[in-house]
C-alpha cells in the first residue's frame, strides 16, 4: 500500500519503527496530489515547501531519539477558513482572495507544536455557508467516489482530500453539519465536538454560537488521536470550556454491550431516501448484534430545527461578516466615489450570492421590529430543542440517525434551490443548536455512493460516541471498493 493511503496511527507505528520517514510520507501525499488534484480540486492553496520543512524537522527529532507526538510528521490539511500565519486564507471568498493572516489559529499553533506537516488549505463553501462546496468562489471540488457529484459542504475540500488520500487527515469546521455531511458523502469519518471543546480562535466566524472545529479522518482511531490534539481550554476563546481533556483513544474499547441507543424516528421518515434509510437501519441492527439495546425515540421539536437554524446562523453571520469592508484587508473595489460606494461595491463584488442571501436574512431577523419575532423566538425554540435532547439522554447513552437524507447529489442539481439545499442538513442541524457532539461514520453504499451513520452524544461525552463508532467500524467490512478498482481516479 502507498504511504498516503495509510492512517495516522499506522504511519506513527512505521515512523517509530524507523520503517519510513516523515519526508517520505509527505512526498507520497504530494505525489498523489500531482496525480488526482486536477480532477478533485480539494485544495485552494498547497504548501509543499512548508510541509517538507516541517517533515524534515520531525525526521530530525526522530533521529535524535526524542519522544514524538502521535501526529509528529503526519501530513494534515486545514480547511481554508482557519487562519494560517503568512499563508493565504480565503474562506473561499473573493473578498479575502488576497488575505494572509498575521497570526495562526489556536488549532494551527497546536498542530505546529505537535510536529504535523501542513499539506495545504482546503476548499469550502464561501464563509462555510453551504452544503456542497459549490458556493466556493475559488473552484469546484468533486467527490472522489464520483466526480460528477458534490463532496458535500461546507468542508467539502477537507473531506475529499481525506477520501482521495491527498492527505492523511484534515481539520474541518461544523456549524450545521459541515464536517459530518461531507464526511458522509465522501465515505470518511468526521466529528463535531461539543461546543466549547475546541478553541474557535482563528476560525473565520460564520455563526459564533454554533461553529466548532473538528477532525475529518480515515478511521475512528485517527479521529480520537486528532481530538486529543485539538481539544482543550483556550484563554483566547471565552466560549471554550475549562474542562480536562480525557485520552480519547482510551475510549476505543471494542465493546458496546448494554449501550442504550435511541434511533431518531423523525429522521427515518418522509424526506429520507429509502435506500439510505435501509442501510442505516442495517447499521442499527449491527449495533444490536454487538450488544447494544436499540429503541425508537421521537424528537418532536426537530421539525423546527432547520427554521431555527436559518434565523440564528444568518443573524450572527450578518454581524460577523460586517468586518469585510475593504478598509483594512482583503478586496477593495476600484469603483469608489465615496465611503458608501466603497462599502457597497466592495461587498457586492466580494461576496457570492449565498453569502449575500444569508446576510440579508440575518440583518432582517435582527432589525428593529423583527428581533423579537425572529431572532429571539428562534433562540427560545433552540432551548426547546436542547431540552428534547436532554430528555432523550435521560433514557439513552447515544442517539443515531442517517447523517444525511441522501447520498451525494450531482453537481449543479440543488444550486438553484436553496431550500432543498438547506433541508439536506435536517439531521445534523439539531446537534449544533444543542451544542452536543456527534460523529459520522461510513455505514454502506447506495448506488455506489457512501452513506453515513450519525452517532450523537451528551455534551462532553465524545468518549461514548467514539466507543460506539469504533465498535461499529471494527465490525463492518474493511474499507470497501478502492478508488483504483472503481476506475474513476
Amino acid at each position, binding site marked *: 500500500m502507498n504511504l498516503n493511503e495509510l492512517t495516522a496511527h499506522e504511519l506513527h507505528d512505521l515512523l517509530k519503527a524507523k520503517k519510513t520517514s516523515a519526508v517520505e510520507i509527505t512526498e507520497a501525499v504530494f505525489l498523489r496530489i500531482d496525480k488526482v488534484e486536477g480532477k478533485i480540486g480539494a485544495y485552494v492553496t498547497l504548501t509543499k515547501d512548508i510541509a517538507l520543512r516541517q517533515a524534515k524537522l520531525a525526521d530530525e527529532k526522530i533521529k535524535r531519539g526524542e519522544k514524538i507526538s502521535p501526529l509528529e510528521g503526519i501530513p494534515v490539511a486545514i480547511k481554508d477558513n482557519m487562519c494560517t500565519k503568512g499563508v493565504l486564507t480565503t474562506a473561499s471568498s473573493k473578498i479575502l482572495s488576497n488575505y494572509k493572516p498575521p497570526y495562526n489559529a489556536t488549532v494551527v499553533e497546536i498542530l505546529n507544536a505537535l510536529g504535523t506537516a501542513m499539506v495545504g488549505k482546503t476548499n469550502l463553501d464561501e464563509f462555510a455557508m453551504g452544503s456542497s462546496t459549490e458556493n466556493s468562489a475559488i473552484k469546484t471540488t468533486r467527490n472522489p467516489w464520483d466526480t460528477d457529484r458534490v463532496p458535500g459542504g461546507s468542508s467539502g475540500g477537507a473531506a475529499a482530500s481525506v477520501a482521495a488520500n491527498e492527505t492523511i487527515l484534515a481539520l474541518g469546521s461544523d456549524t450545521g453539519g459541515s464536517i459530518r455531511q461531507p464526511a458522509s458523502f465522501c465515505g470518511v469519518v468526521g466529528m463535531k465536538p461539543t461546543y466549547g471543546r475546541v478553541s474557535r480562535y482563528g476560525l473565520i466566524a460564520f455563526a*459564533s454560537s454554533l461553529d466548532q472545529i473538528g477532525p475529518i479522518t480515515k478511521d475512528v482511531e485517527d479521529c480520537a488521536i486528532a481530538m486529543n490534539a485539538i481539544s482543550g481550554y483556550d484563554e483566547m476563546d471565552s466560549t471554550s470550556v475549562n474542562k480536562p481533556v480525557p485520552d480519547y483513544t482510551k475510549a476505543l474499547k471494542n465493546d458496546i454491550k448494554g449501550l442504550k441507543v435511541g434511533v431518531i424516528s423523525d429522521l427515518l421518515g418522509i424526506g429520507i431516501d429509502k435506500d439510505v434509510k435501509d442501510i442505516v437501519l442495517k447499521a442499527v441492527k449491527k449495533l444490536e448484534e454487538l450488544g447494544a439495546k436499540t429503541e425508537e425515540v421521537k424528537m418532536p421539536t426537530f421539525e423546527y430545527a432547520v427554521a431555527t437554524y436559518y434565523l440564528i446562523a444568518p443573524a450572527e453571520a450578518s454581524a460577523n461578516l460586517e468586518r469585510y469592508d475593504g*478598509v483594512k484587508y482583503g478586496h477593495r473595489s476600484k469603483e469608489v466615489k465615496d465611503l458608501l460606494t466603497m462599502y457597497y461595491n466592495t461587498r457586492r463584488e466580494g461576496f457570492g450570492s449565498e453569502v449575500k442571501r444569508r446576510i440579508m436574512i440575518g440583518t432582517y431577523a435582527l432589525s428593529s421590529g423583527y428581533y423579537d419575532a425572529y431572532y429571539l423566538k428562534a433562540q427560545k425554540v433552540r432551548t426547546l430543542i436542547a431540552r428534547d435532547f436532554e430528555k432523550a439522554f435521560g433514557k439513552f447513552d447515544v442517539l443515531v440517525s442517517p447523517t444525511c437524507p441522501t447520498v451525494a447529489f450531482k453537481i449543479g442539481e440543488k444550486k438553484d434551490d436553496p431550500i432543498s439545499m438547506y433541508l439536506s442538513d435536517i439531521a445534523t442541524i439539531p446537534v449544533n443548536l444543542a451544542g452536543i457532539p456527534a460523529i459520522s461514520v461510513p455505514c454502506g453504499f447506495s448506488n455506489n455512493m457512501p452513506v453515513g451513520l450519525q452517532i450523537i452524544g451528551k455534551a462532553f461525552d465524545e468518549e461514548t460516541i467514539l466507543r460506539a463508532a469504533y465498535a461499529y467500524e471494527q465490525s463492518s467490512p474493511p474499507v470497501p471498493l478502492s478508488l483504483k478498482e472503481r476506475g474513476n481516479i
Partner: protein
Amino acid sequence: MQFETIIGLEIHAQLLTESKMFCSCSAKFGAVPNTNVCPICTGQPGVLPKMNRKAIELAIKTALALDCKIEPRSVFARKNYFYPDLPKNYQISQYELPLATKGFLDIEMDGKTKKIGITRVHLEEDAGKLVHKGAARIMGSEESLVDLNRTGTPLMEIVSEPDIRSPEEAKEYVEELANLLKQLGVCDAKLEEGSLRCDANISLRPVGESKLGVKSEVKNLNSFRSILKALEHEVKRQTQVLNEGGKIVQETRYFDDLTDTTTSMRSKEFAHDYRYFPEPDLVPVEPDAKWINEIKKSIGELPAQKRKRYEKELGLPPHNANLISSSKEMADFFEETLKLYNDPIDISNQLIGDVSAYSNENKIPLSKTRLTPFLMAGTLGEIKKGSISRKMAKDIIIEQLKTGKAVDEITKESGMAQISDEGELIKIIKEVIAANPKIVEDYKKGKTTVAAFLVGQVMRASKGQANPALVNKLLKEELKK
C-alpha cells in the same frame, strides 16, 4: 407659556487601564499611529474578544460610588454600524443588561443638595481616530487616514435620569462627576482632552405637565463652558420654536463654540437601527459578592462625604469645605497639616487663598511645589505665636512653595522677623507720636478712630514687621500718658 427645562446627560469616560477592553494592547495615549494594535482590535478574520477584568473592576467601583445596584448578571451586546474607525463594524457594548443601574449623584446648587438619578453604568469599547485630508469630515475629503490605536480602549458610559433642570445644574453635575471619577482613580476626566465626553439630551415641557417633550441631542461639548452655553442656547431656541407654535424635531445638534449656537446634523442619511443582540463570543458578567466587597473597601471616603465631614466636624465654612474636598491632593495636604497644627479653618483659608493662587498662576500642582504640610504647620504656628505677621506670612508661604525652606531660614535671610520686643516697639511708637502732634491731640479729644492711622505709621516705620496687636496695645498705653 412657562416651560420647564428637562436635561439628561450621557457621559463617556476613558478608563485608566493598562490594556484595552478586549485585548492586551496598551491603552496608553499618544503612540505612533497603528502601533498599539493586534489582530483582535484590528478586527482580523477569526479573532475573538477577551474581557479586561480591571475595566470591569473600575466600572463596578464607579457604580458603587454612585450608589448603583451592581447587576448580578450583565451581558455584552453588538451594536452594529459601519464606519472606518470601527474595524469590526460593530461595537461591543452593553444594551439590555448593563453592569449597574439605579444610582444617584448629589450636586450642590445654591447651597442646597440635589439628587440627580443615574439610570445606568455600562462598559463598551472605543473606536479609532480618523484624520481627513481636504475636508473636515469624510464627506468631501480626498482621503482619510485611519489610526486604530484608540480602537478597543475601555469606555464607561454613565447615563443620568432626566432630572437636571437647568444648564447650570448640568455643568455642576458634570463637574461633580468628573471630580468623583478623578478621586476614584478610574478616569482623569478631562473634557478638553476627550478622556471625558459629554452628550446632552434636552427638552422643554409646559410647567405642570408630566409628559416629556421632544428632545434634541447635543454633541461636541468639550468644555464646561460649552456645556453651559450649548444648553442655554437650546433653551432659548426651543422656547422660541414652541412659543411660535412650532414643533421640536428629534434630532442631533452640533455645538459650535465660536458662535455659541447649535446646528442640526440632519445631513445624516440614515436613521440608525443598531440591531443590538447579545455578544455570542463573550460569557455574561456575574461578579460575586466577595469581589464587589473588595472593590467597595478600596473606595475610601468620597468627596461629598469629605465635604460634609469638613463642614460638620471641622466647622469649615461651606465654600472652604467644597474647594478642599474637591481635590484629593488638597484634601490630603489639608488633613496632613491638620495633624500637626490644630486650626482647620486657618489651614483651609491659607490653602484656598495664597497656595491655590500660586499653584494656578504658575500652573504647578500642589504636590509638585516645595511646600509640605510640615512647613505649612510651622508657618501657621509662627503667625499664632506672633513672631510673624499675616502679611509677612503671605510672602513666606510663597517662598516656601518655591524653595521649601523653613520659616526662620527665610526670615533670617530677608531680615523679616516680626518685632514683638516691647522696648523696641515703644521706641518707634514714641517717634510716631512725636511726629504727629495734631493727630495725637485729636485722639486725646475723643476721636479714638485716628489711632488706626498711628498704628499704620508704626507699621510703616517698622517696615511692616511690628506685631500689630502689640502695637495697638502699647500705642493706646502711650497715648494715655
